């Protein structure tokens, strides 16, 4: 099982690759809506990709109020 830092790094890598943002421009505490320039539907797309990548189920209400990668990683880590 990956540790928290590995999980966070994988999320940043996946987001950078899929939304075509240079990886070095993404930081753990960034607001991913702003940094990635995505809306709620694209966020659901990201959620789907994260679920497949980590082979977890993450109900979308778990994302309520979350906008930074670090908290997102925390939610995912709790389900690994």
């Amino acid at each position: 099982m990956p540790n928290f830092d590995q999980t966070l790094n994988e999320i940043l890598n996946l987001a950078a690759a899929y939304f075509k943002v240079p990886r070095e421009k993404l930081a753990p505490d960034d607001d991913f809506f702003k940094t990635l320039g995505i809306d709620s539907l694209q966020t659901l797309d990201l959620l789907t990709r994260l679920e497949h990548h980590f082979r977890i189920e993450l109900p979308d209400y778990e994302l309520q109020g979350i906008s930074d990668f670090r908290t997102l990683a925390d939610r995912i880590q709790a389900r690994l």
Partner: protein
Amino acid sequence: MRKPRGTSIGEGNHFALVDGMETFCGQALSWELKDGVVELALHREPNNELGSMALAEAEKFAASLEQVGEVAHALIIYSKLPSGFSAGADLRELYQRSQNVPPAQAVRIVRDQLERTHRVMNAIDASPLTTIAAVHGIVFGGGFELALVCDLIIADKTARFCFPELRLGLIPGWGGIPRLKRDLGNAVVRDLLLTGRSFNATKLQQAGLASQVVGEGEALRVARATAAQLGKFDHHTAATAKKFIKPIPYDELRREIDLFCELFTHPTVDAGLRKFVESTDAQPYLP
């Protein structure tokens, strides 16, 4: 140009007959019949929100289905938009139509829309053709209900299914609950409906609703391959089997319309719709 086989589908300026292939191209929907397979495409920007325009075109489509059944064996429904299959009912239109009219009139408008939509959904559900929803991206609310009328759901791995209606103070109104109850265990139905959370394609397949989960961008290709396979079977036998296997819960569908209209009069619905329509939040599709 060859004389076309069968009966024409569609009417108006957008309708064309090209070398025996029958096509209709509207503003929200288009369809064509080729090699015994009808393909119904959704293409209303930005996310295939289904409103009065889509309904009017869908009614034309439904009216033609029985005639097309003589020359077709399968129907594929898919979206041409990258965002997904459909975001469901056009909530902005629903909200605007319910404003500035007395509550009783608003309910009458809603009931009329529901009755018309149910007739279309029921026609597809009961069609003798084997029907396939080829879906990707968002499959929400009314979009999910459209997929549910189909005999098979082929989902690409980006697909995400959700009934968010409770967030608006409503229940699904286009046959979602009766058809979920027909096809799934009640615990899964409760999970989908009462939490309003979305399922990915793998979860939907585990629940027993998605027939196949395929790679990104592959749903339509696989649906076409499936339709080609279905064409090898005797059409009458396939239609007879479908009628025997797939009951249509007409009584529950009627009850759903009544419940929806009853709930629509509650103030929570107006507040929920207003919140969605006027939202500048980055997350209107998240709970």
